[in-house]
């Protein structure tokens, strides 16, 4: 059923790409019989030190104010933290309350939806505000799968060990414990809601291997895992009658006089109207930051991934953890230009596709962790000069035809329908030709620090879940652990927020913390000329740029 939508008579590849592809095809037979060498721990260390964007100082700037003052962050994030509020100088009347609720959830992705369902089930009045439409989120895009140690040869300890090593031993132990111990329960919860997991006839989950995983632990729904999970969660939220307010961004947290989180200032994305939401507890589930394009990288993320939650929470006094570490997905699409940055799911590597340089050589084991694989590609392209030329840069091959050769014809069509379709739109049949990839900004490893109940330590009644959290995954997240974290910590935040809401009495509302933060900006002499959070990246071309003298 999948057919090319744009028919190209000539090959979609350039002559130099075709030439390199011949070399790749020449080595394929031999590569199918063997496995590329794995790197030693020391080799990996050296590679990361030299080539991973996190490990240098370039592209970073020091945070000057707030709880993380003195630490570094990508310069785009630092600029957000050094910017004024969107309501700077406005005297908003906090007594004009538009929404009054028990639990306010900011963000309509997987974490927000999970939290909403749990808080609702706990008997609370719940409301979700989300910037675009409910479900428009990174959660909708997860392709590869979701981890959980539910097989006989696996255990929560094994899962813990993989994630700890993958995270370079920086994971907060109690949070990681929660992640792995709640794995099976979370998958079962999703199954009970009707998520269509890939299963054998008898109901046994089909589980896949993946970079950095010592067991086949990745559960999937074809290559639409996130879409399948998110649309089911969204449907459940709707069916439960939870109040969803679309196209509405939270732009500042509101505290009460005692310093507890007590709501948020909202902005209608379509009309610009400000609205006050008052709540007994608040859950931040605003996701990642890919659209900030740290270090100039393209991104796999959705349109609204602009670190808003981090900015709001920081202004209110929360500290960030590992805000300087970003996950670059090794296989973002490098070609054609229309797909630049779009994810080629890790499952493609998991089922055997090699990473190949311009000469047709496998330069890194395809199952290395993401940071190692991404760094190896950057080294291959920029230090070894063995990348394949693409318009405006370089990329490497991902040898996708190997997949059907290893697993039998039809494997790509059944296991990777989304990928097949994506490239087919541009006349590239990944069953027959390899595809070109280059690292893309994929995941914000760091975020707002939380404690064991999903609560922040600095602001009572404030909870965080999902990609906005820092600490669960240390300094590098393993594939499939984020969708799990979204469900585990989403549910946890919902439960905790509901519990606390029951005994909360809200004091009078204030935005003094915003004024106070702006005073710090002023005394430090910082002025970016911009307001934050930015809510959406500015992609509109400046149509008057060449009209002015």
């Amino acid at each position, binding site marked *: *059923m*999948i*057919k090319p*939508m*744009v028919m190209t008579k000539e090959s979609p590849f350039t002559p130099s790409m075709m030439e390199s592809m011949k070399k790749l095809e020449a080595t394929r037979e031999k590569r199918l019989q063997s496995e590329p060498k794995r790197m030693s*721990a020391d080799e990996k260390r050296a590679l990361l030190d030299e080539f991973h964007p996190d490990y240098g100082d370039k592209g970073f700037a020091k945070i000057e104010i707030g709880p993380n003052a003195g630490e570094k962050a990508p310069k785009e994030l630092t600029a957000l933290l050094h910017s004024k509020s969107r309501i700077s100088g406005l005297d908003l009347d906090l007594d004009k309350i538009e929404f009054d609720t028990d639990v306010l959830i900011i963000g309509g992705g997987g974490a927000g939806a999970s939290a909403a369902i749990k808080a609702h089930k706990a008997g609370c009045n719940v409301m979700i505000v989300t910037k*675009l439409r409910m*479900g*428009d989120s990174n959660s*909708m*895009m997860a392709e590869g799968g979701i981890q959980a140690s*539910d097989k006989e*040869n696996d*255990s929560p*300890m*094994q899962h813990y*060990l*993989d994630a*700890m*090593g993958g995270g370079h*031993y920086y994971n907060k132990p109690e949070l990681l*414990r929660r992640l792995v*111990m*709640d794995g*099976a*329960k979370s*998958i*079962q919860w999703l*199954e009970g*809601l*009707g998520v*269509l*997991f890939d*299963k054998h*006839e*008898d*109901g046994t989950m089909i589980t896949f291997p993946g970079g950095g995983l*010592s067991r*086949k632990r990745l559960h999937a729904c*074809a290559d*639409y895992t996130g*879409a399948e999970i998110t649309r*089911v969660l969204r449907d459940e939220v*709707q*069916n*439960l*009658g939870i109040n969803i307010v679309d*196209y509405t961004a939270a732009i500042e947290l509101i505290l009460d006089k005692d310093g507890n989180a007590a709501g948020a200032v909202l902005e209608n994305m*379509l009309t610009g109207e400000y609205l006050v939401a008052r709540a007994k507890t608040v859950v931040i589930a605003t996701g990642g930051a890919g659209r900030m394009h740290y270090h100039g990288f393209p991104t796999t993320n*959705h*349109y609204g991934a602009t670190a808003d939650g981090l900015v709001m929470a920081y202004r209110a006094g929360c500290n960030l953890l590992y805000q300087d570490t970003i996950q670059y997905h090794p296989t973002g699409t490098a070609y*054609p*230009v229309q797909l630049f940055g*779009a994810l080629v799911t890790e499952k493609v590597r998991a089922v055997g596709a090699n990473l190949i340089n311009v000469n047709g050589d496998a330069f890194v084991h395809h199952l290395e962790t993401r940071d190692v694989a991404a760094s190896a590609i950057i080294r291959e392209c920029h230090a070894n000069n063995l990348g394949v030329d693409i318009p405006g840069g370089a990329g490497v091959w991902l040898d996708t035809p190997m997949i059907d050769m290893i697993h039998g014809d039809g494997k790509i069509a059944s296991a990777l329908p989304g990928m097949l*379709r994506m490239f087919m739109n541009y006349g590239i049949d990944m069953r027959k030709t390899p595809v070109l990839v280059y690292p893309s900004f994929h995941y914000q490893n760091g975020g707002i620090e939380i404690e064991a109940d999903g609560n922040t330590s600095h602001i009572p009644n404030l909870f965080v879940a999902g990609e906005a959290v820092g600490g669960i995954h240390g300094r590098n997240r393993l594939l499939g652990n984020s969708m799990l974290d979204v469900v585990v910590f989403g549910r946890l935040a919902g439960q905790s927020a509901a519990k606390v809401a029951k005994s909360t009495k809200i004091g009078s509302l204030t935005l003094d913390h915003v004024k106070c933060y702006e005073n710090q900006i002023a005394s430090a002499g910082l002025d970016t000329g911009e307001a934050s959070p930015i809510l*959406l990246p500015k*992609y*509109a*071309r400046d*149509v008057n740029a060449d009209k002015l003298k």
Partner: protein
Amino acid sequence: MQEMANVYFDGKHYQVPSDLTIMTAMEYAGYQLVRGCGCRHGFCGACGAIYRLKGETRPHFSLACQTKVEEGMYVATLPFFPLNNKNYNIEETKPTDQVMMEIFPEIYACVGCNACTKSCSRGLNTMQYIAYAKRGDYEKCATASFDCVACGICSARCPANISHCLVGLLARRLTGKYIMPPADHTAKRAIDIAAGKFDADMATLMAKPKEEIKELYDNREIEK
């Protein structure tokens, strides 16, 4: 010189580089999108776009983020279509023969015009999956509708007022929850964890110094 294409957004003419998608071409034209843009990579269905090429009678149906502009393209976007959401309780909704009749009776008014299939931005056989739902074959409906991104274009075209994507979603939820056998090993693991079966081993592992955990990690056996 970059090759340019003449396109029309909401009837208004713009010249845009011809290698852009409809979405990036709108941004090139100067639109700062708020509606009609979500994932930007073909998953969320926020960017349904209907276009007609100059001189053609038949409109085309696509996702703006996944479709290259073409010369003489007249584009309208469909950021939202009011679907007929039904608040069913999945715990009480069973995969019986009547369930579709109870929740989405309009599917039985399908006139077989095939407008839904012809307008699917993902190339799905939509009318077929509705037919599966009608005759209670929920598993087949689930598979056939799996790639649906709920852009809503088919529902905008349907003379029988069907909310196709919601029908597919119900069929998938019924299949996932009731029709496919449950994963016993997952349930068993959840019970064992709740019973504290792993607590001691977990505590021992967590208590180890970093060097020892590192040692375990570096030498762990990797399942082939």
